């Protein structure tokens, strides 16, 4: 049994739109897997099915041997936007997940404090989100996500809205947090460089209806530094490999680059 097993999953929106078609994917425990594809290919839909937020209609999904269910404590979900509660301070926001999941107060504050220090937000514990930059808010969201003790992390383009420099910093930060614990990560992105730099495997999806067109193993050694990789020859090899797979997928599905 892997961490996540998806078998012949199909998703329809209404009678005509086939969003995801015959999607089969097995993810091992401790693997960092990215799913890339053009916008509208159903990446986020797959993630929402794993969280149970979208009901499963066709196919099978098993998460650590169990069917998806809303609020599954085995899953920590990180959204594209930071989703910080604006009336809570940084430390209170970092505690939000553990608070909902019933972790004792002293324990959750201690975890949040430790993680805020790791993400570089020490000194900003009592600031409200409006006083933080985009990058800092996403750091706080990372702290909130990692303070949950779920073995599986689902991340939906968490760095999509950040500028290039901040993005690299946060990618390195994510890798260092992940490296320490090796939880299973499913990372959705449309940025191939990001997927290659972070992942053990990159799953390439075609445009709608979303199908898997390639499953590329990234053999770059770990621990990695995303910034150092930017000038690394092997990294660019992997990048162009994934890129050509993506192009092939787009061409096969009718030549629509993005919706």
């Amino acid at each position, binding site marked *: 049994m892997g961490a996540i097993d998806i078998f012949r999953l199909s998703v329809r929106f209404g009678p005509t739109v086939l969003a995801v078609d015959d999607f089969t994917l097995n993810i091992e425990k401790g693997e960092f897997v990215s799913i890339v594809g053009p916008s509208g290919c159903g990446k986020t839909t797959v993630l929402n099915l794993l969280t149970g937020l979208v009901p499963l209609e066709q196919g099978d999904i098993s998460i650590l041997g169990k069917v998806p269910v809303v609020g599954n404590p085995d899953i920590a*979900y990180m959204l594209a936007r930071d989703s910080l509660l*604006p009336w809570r301070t940084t430390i209170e926001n970092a505690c939000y997940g553990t608070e909902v999941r019933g972790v004792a107060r002293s324990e959750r504050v201690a975890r949040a404090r430790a993680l805020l220090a790791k993400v570089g937000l020490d000194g900003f514990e009592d600031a*409200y989100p409006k006083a933080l930059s985009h990058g800092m808010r996403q750091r706080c969201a990372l702290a909130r996500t990692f303070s949950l003790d779920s073995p599986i992390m689902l991340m939906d383009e968490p760095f999509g809205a950040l500028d290039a420099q901040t993005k690299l910093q946060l990618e390195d930060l994510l890798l260092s947090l992940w490296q320490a614990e090796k939880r299973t990560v499913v990372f959705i992105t449309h940025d191939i460089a990001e997927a290659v730099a972070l992942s053990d495997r990159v799953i390439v999806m075609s445009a709608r209806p979303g199908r898997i067109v390639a499953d590329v193993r990234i053999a770059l050694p770990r621990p990695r530094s995303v910034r150092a990789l930017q000038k690394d020859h092997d990294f660019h090899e992997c990048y162009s490999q994934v890129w050509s797979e993506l192009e092939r997928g787009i061409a096969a599905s009718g030549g629509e680059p993005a919706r």
Partner: protein
Amino acid sequence: MKRDPSTVLVHVVFVAAFFGLWEFASSNEWLNRTFFGSPSGIVRYLIKGFAPGGKLWLELGYTVAGTVISFVLGAVMAIALGLSFAVFPRLERAMDPYLTVLNAMPRLALAPLFLLWFGLGIGSKIAVGTSLSFFIVLANTVAGIRGVSGDLITLSRSLGATPMQIFFKVTLPSAVPVIASGLRLGLIFSMLGVIGAEIIAAEHGLGQTLSYLQSTFDMDGVMALLFLLALLGMVVTTGMTRLERALLRWQ
């Protein structure tokens, strides 16, 4: 907020000139005192009214009490109903047409009815004030609840939050700023309703006094009352704004 001393000076000069000119014009009979009164007459009226034995304190007390009571009643009922809409959306759908009809009706037109039901005492003005504050606060409560970010709900559900947790940790706090601005309007509307009801008919209150002074052509008194009402309105709004700012430091 710091004020520029020169701006303050300009205002002082302007106000002094305005009242000086008014006083000058009325004492020289350029302005008819019967219709416009005079600043000195206004001041005399106010001093007499607020001096021991004067009746303005009592009238002011009635109006303020009526405003506060109808604001609290209207706001409490509106927030309770609005929040229950968040928990039971079917209730909102069921009540919506009736609330729309009631809200469309000019509430001051209900004053004659309320006077008949509740008499000339404080009851009828509270009824009018409450009917005004209730709807404005309800509208804001509903808008506040609808304005909750979908991301925050998604995140909370993925964490396994119960509907109760979502309500208290997400929906309610995120609705507070919109409810607060509704409360500010609600307080002003309460005052409006109370004074309106008093003008139509009442035993006591600034509105009743105003209407009496007008019918006896006491223009100094009418003008004095208008200034008093403006001042009262200002105190009410600044007070609410201060309170709002203290409560919503995170904004």
